[in-house]
């Protein structure tokens, strides 16, 4: 069996890529996608853990998988909502560049 640490490394890498995307991208849509990457990293972590951790005290094996399902659902909703708002902005200001979306600051 592939050790848990490997999964965790992959997950961490994916999370880091998502993180980088959030920080480096200027398009709101790409930022949403980067966040999706981060959430997927979470899923990998959860599912890997739920299948590796047998024998821990009070271990709730299915929790990880259930959480992953919920996360997928929530993520989908989040994307939907996020894109709706981005559309709204695009309609009002003809841009989705977060550099230009700074009416409010300080």
């Amino acid at each position, binding site marked *: 069996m592939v050790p848990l640490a490997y999964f965790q490394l992959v997950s961490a890498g994916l999370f880091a890529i998502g993180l980088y995307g959030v*920080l480096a991208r200027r398009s709101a849509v790409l930022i949403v996608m980067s966040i999706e990457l981060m959430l997927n990293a979470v899923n990998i972590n959860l599912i890997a853990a739920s299948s590796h951790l047998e024998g821990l005290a009070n271990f709730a094996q299915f929790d990880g998988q259930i959480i992953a399902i919920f996360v997928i659902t929530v993520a989908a909703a989040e994307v939907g909502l996020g894109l709706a708002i981005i559309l709204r902005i695009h309609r009002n200001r003809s841009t989705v560049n*977060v550099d230009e*979306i*700074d009416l409010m*600051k300080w």
Partner: protein
Amino acid sequence: MEWAWLIPVLSFIAAPLIVILGPKLPGKGSFLAILAIAAGFVIFWAVLSGFLGASPDSSHCETSADTGSLVCDYQQEWFHAGLASLDQSVTLTWGTLIDPLTLAMLGLVTFVALMVQVYSLGYMKGDPRLGWYYAVHAMFAGSMLTLVLADNFLLLYMAWELVGICSYLLIGFWHERPAAKEAAKKAFIVTRIGDVGLLVGILLLWSEVGSFSMSEAFNAATTGAMSEGVTTTAALLLLLGAMGKSAQFPFHVWLPDAMEGPTPVSALIHAATMVVAGVYLVARAFPIFQAYDGDALLVVAVVGLVTALMSASIALVSVDLKRILAYSTISHLGLMMLSLGAFGYTAAIFHLLAHGFAKALLFLGAGSVMHSTEAQDIRQMGGLIKVMPITAIVFSVGALSLGGIPLLAGFWSKDEILNAVSQNRNPVFIATAFVVAFMSAFYMARAMFVVFFGQLRQGLDHAHESPWLMTAPMMMLAVLAAGFGLINFNWPGAFPGFGGLIYFHEAEDFHFNLWIGVLSTVLALGAFWLASLCYLRERISPDILRQKAPWLAVVVENKYYFDEVYQWAVDRLVLTVSGFVALFDRAVVNDVGVNGPADTVRRVGFVLRLHVTGHLYSYALAMVLGTVGLAVLWWLRSV
């Protein structure tokens, strides 16, 4: 005797009554003050006879171990500072102390105050603030009488301050005149500086003795319970207060200016009563001064001597009638101090009384002159005897008495002082004292001759004799000024003489030292003769001194530049310091100390707000950094 407290209290009651009811009463209530002081005068006699009949066995009376004379003390609890059951607390009392010294002062104050108040009826007639004048007068009389009756230092200090404020109010009575206003302020503040010493001295005694009672303090001083250093320090501190009140060098500057007040005020307060409070204080606290061989008394003597000489010299050249009298007062106060400093206790008190009557008389006389001529500069006067003979005569009596013409009161008292000085102090003292005696006679003669004798000056034709309300008191005072010396003699069996009544430890006989008597007589007569040559017959030009030693004349005529120096000190030092502190308060304490941190905080806020840039990714970055920080923190706390 136990009713002696009524003497001041009557006047104290009269004062507010006049203020409140005065406007509705005839004469603005002035009669209330006169009634009160007259009643006081009557009670004084009752107290006197009571005291003469008392013995050490009478209740409340004993022979004081500190002064050797009979003392009667009546106490009344006033208030407790600190819970009475605590050790450190102190119970403050009202107390009247009756001894010969007090009685002498009581007599002087009640009598002169009565005379002056009656005189004022004429002098101040028609003044719109007559009621106020009499109210303050009553207030003053009450305070002054309290001062001499007080059996503890606290009460004395209170009365001391009250007479000061009354003096302030009366000097500034015509406050619309800038000079009067300034003079009043100056008088109060200068004496107040001395009072700092007095208060500190009183507190020092209290901290040593644990009580404000005079007799306990004296006891401690004489029995050696109080160390030499403390005793001497206390004495000098008390002296500081006395110097302020009695206008001794270097605090003398306020008294001449105080002549801006109404003349009767000058007569009462600045000649006969309040200014002698300093002398009284030293006499009263004599056990403290005299303890440990009387080191402190040397200081008293020197202060007295310097004051006497300096102010006598200024009196020689002053041209303002009242100021001549004022400097004369200072000079004579100096003599009294000198006398005390030379252990001449009896002599000092005797001179105090004699001078009090004479000087009050002179001031009232001067007031009478000014009342009718409306002038104050003696160069505008002359030959007034022709239009106001009574004034002229009584004034002359006062001048001769104070000048030391034999057989008049002043002669005897001055003689006693010279006697004491010659016995107990260095020859320099007696020599200088003779010079002062000569000057004293000379300036009195000068004033007398210039004002009343010679040709009647032009423009003085309208002058007239003052009304009887003014002349009668003057005449009564004149009698005393002339004849008061008689009580100096002891008539065995009938009267013990002044020295047999008022003495320190040992009753004193009347003593007459021939060479002193002769020398002082010669000096006095010589001075009068010389003055007559200068001012009456005009054989000698008074300007001769000015021509021979111009610098001296300038210095003396400018009163040794004391006012200028003080003015400089006030302007340059006090006001500068004050201005600096005020600036410091604004610029440093407020602008730097208060606004500084406040502005800094606000500025930090303004700079800090820039971190919210408005850009999404920077928010995310902050979160990431925060996450890292938090994780590091967590790691640090977990391993």
